[in-house]
């Protein structure tokens, strides 16, 4: 049977991809951010996942407003990155795991989550940057991927509570997969940031610290916020916290906190990282 080894939440700011491409990991601006990742990589080397289920949001690469799925799951043998329009270098394709994807789709649909299924899907920086951070210089065989995309572009967005419950369903789906596979869930996005409007540049350190505490031991408290609350407290793009709730919903109760890092700013964003191990 498949086993969930744990989960990682990490920011996915495009500037990180540029910093990696330019080899700036030890630059004074970047060191406090990149310095958080070696411990996460060590943990991955210990738990040796075969598959990463990627919980993320597309920023207008694969999905446009003509068709905007609330929840979309990839079911392809391979996922490609592409030009997002503003100069981030593209990276090599990522292997998929169509068998696990279809099992997850069947299972969450039976659990009343009516997801959109994608046999072709371009993956943007929210998918590629965290994988670059966690598997630097990756080999194609390092890890297979299953993308789970959440709509954070066009309101109404799925509520934090609904996302937490999707996590429960994803957890049941993965753990009922009859084949042997070690699975890590990687939630990308956050923490507080706002790109648009006169409030651009908004960051809320106090709220982020609250989230870093609660995501471990009391995620249901975070799930009780509305999207409107999250926009107010974490900024228009800070709503990406919903991906963290999907991930957390798929893990055990309780979990063991392995590592965390928090740094302001990376570009316009408060960057967070957390590694949670399943207790079992």
């Amino acid at each position: 049977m498949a086993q969930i080894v744990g989960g990682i939440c990490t920011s996915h700011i495009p500037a990180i991809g540029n910093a990696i491409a330019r080899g700036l990991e030890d630059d004074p601006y970047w060191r406090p951010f990149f310095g958080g990742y070696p411990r996460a990589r060590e943990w991955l080397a210990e738990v040796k996942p075969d598959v990463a289920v990627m919980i993320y949001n597309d920023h207008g690469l694969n999905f446009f407003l003509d068709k905007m799925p609330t929840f979309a799951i990839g079911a392809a043998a391979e996922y490609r990155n592409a030009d997002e329009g503003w100069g981030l270098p593209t990276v090599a394709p990522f292997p998929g795991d169509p068998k696990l994807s279809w099992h997850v789709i069947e299972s969450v649909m039976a659990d009343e989550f009516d997801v959109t299924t994608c046999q072709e899907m371009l993956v943007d920086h929210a998918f590629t940057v965290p994988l670059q951070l966690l598997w630097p210089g990756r080999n194609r065989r390092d890890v297979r991927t299953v993308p789970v995309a959440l709509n954070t572009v066009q309101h109404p967005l799925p509520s934090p509570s609904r996302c937490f419950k999707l996590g429960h369903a994803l957890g049941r789906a993965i753990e009922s997969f009859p084949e042997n596979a070690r699975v890590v869930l990687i939630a990308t996005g956050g923490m507080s940031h706002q790109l648009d409007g006169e409030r651009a540049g908004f960051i809320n350190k106090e709220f982020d610290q609250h989230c870093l505490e609660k995501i471990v031991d009391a995620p249901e408290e975070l799930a009780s916020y509305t999207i409107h609350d999250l926009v107010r407290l974490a900024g228009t793009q800070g709503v990406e916290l919903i991906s963290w709730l999907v991930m957390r919903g798929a893990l055990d109760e309780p979990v063991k906190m392995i590592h965390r890092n928090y740094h302001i700013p990376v570009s316009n964003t408060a960057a967070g990282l957390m590694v949670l191990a399943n207790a079992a």
Partner: protein
Amino acid sequence: MASRGDIPGTYIFDGELALKGYPLNKMCYSFNEAANRKAFLDDEEAYCARFGLNDEQRDAIRRRDVLALLEAGGNVYYLAKFTGIFGLGVQDIGAQQTGMSVDEFRARLRAAGT
């Protein structure tokens, strides 16, 4: 301060804005492709006409005015592909929207961490 809803300086990109901004966002989405970015630069007015932008949207595009683009129904994820054509990143547009210099905007972000 131009804003929508009850959070100052904040646009909630909902159905009303998505409907209003559809042609503008569709044009900006096309800028994922280098050939389309070039076609825009070659003949900006003709490119806007192809997507059916209204006068408000065309004017905001001409002025590269992010707040006016948001007001015209633009969504920041697609607008970033437009401003990217001119090498403007999120800190440049943050500075523009808040009326600061880029250095001032960056200093404010750093200050949020202290």
